[in-house]
């Protein structure tokens, strides 16, 4: 566990509500004013309205926070994935995608989330599964055990890549391999990543002989090795 700080203006409003509510409750505990109509109205604010506002803002901010890299990286088991994703020298798919301005800070969530109708809820349910596994098993792993024993639950879906790479753009379609494999890629028959052309998104976590070098990846993508990606 580590301290992850991201304070928005809404959080400050929630904190102000919490301070006022706490002040009302502490005042009651110290002074014990009568619980007449006026007293109950004030206590309604202190015990009801203001804490409910704190809870509502807390829910909004909390759910938004669960999409950020910092949240995923708050378990030590994710350290290596986050380090690679934020390494400016890394050419892994994860690192390249984490450098985009659009969603770089939430790259874990944007690449791994479920894009179905109930995707948000399903993604959060999956996250609860991770919490259970972390508390029951993973939290005792060191870095070597993490690499060896923790794997993605199911193969990465091409659908997730296709949320951004729609497979209809001219540049994308202009690549011969894309055009030739169009139906297979759309149906998921051929994976974009892993054993597919673009290699593993987190290559450091895979055996070296299964991981293409930067040159091989570059050749597969651009057909022109040596220029970097």
């Amino acid at each position: 566990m580590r301290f992850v700080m991201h304070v928005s203006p809404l959080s400050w409003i929630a904190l102000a509500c919490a301070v006022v509510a706490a002040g009302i409750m502490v005042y009651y505990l110290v002074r014990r004013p009568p619980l007449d109509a006026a007293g109950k109205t004030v206590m309604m604010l202190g015990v009801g309205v203001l804490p409910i506002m704190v809870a509502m803002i807390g829910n909004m901010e909390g759910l938004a926070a669960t999409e950020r890299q910092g949240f995923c990286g708050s378990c030590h088991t994710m350290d290596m994935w986050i380090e690679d994703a934020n390494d400016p020298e890394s050419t892994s798919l994860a690192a390249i995608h984490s450098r985009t301005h659009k969603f770089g800070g939430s790259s874990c969530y944007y690449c791994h989330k479920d894009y179905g109708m109930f995707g948000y809820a399903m993604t959060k349910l999956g996250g609860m599964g991770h919490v259970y596994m972390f508390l029951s098993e993973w939290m005792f792993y060191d870095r070597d055990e993490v690499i060896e024993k923790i794997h993605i639950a199911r193969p990465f879906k091409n659908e997730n890549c296709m949320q951004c790479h729609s497979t209809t753009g001219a540049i994308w379609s202009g690549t011969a391999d894309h055009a030739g494999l169009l139906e297979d890629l759309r149906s998921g028959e051929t994976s974009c990543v892993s054993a597919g052309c673009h290699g593993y998104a987190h290559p450091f976590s895979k055996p070296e002989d299964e991981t293409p070098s930067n040159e091989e990846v570059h050749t597969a993508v651009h057909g022109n090795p040596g220029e970097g990606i």
Partner: protein
Amino acid sequence: MSPKERWLHFIDNASRSKLMVYACVLGLIALALMSWSLFDQGWIPIMAAMSVGQGIGTLSFALFLVIVFIDLRQAEFRPSIPPERPKRSDD
């Protein structure tokens, strides 16, 4: 004693000020947990706030509602419409 009778016995004998003290203590714990998650957005504070924190906060508010319920049970309601004047009997 049935659950309903037990509930009514509790309502008739509970101390409102004591209930409010419990509500305040629970409310302060809930606020502390929920406020923590606003500034430290790791998985422990966020999950603690959205489960334990909100559960304790709900309990605190429920205790306040019990106090209101007790007051309503003990209140004497006066009709807001004055009773009609007795009609004069026809002479």
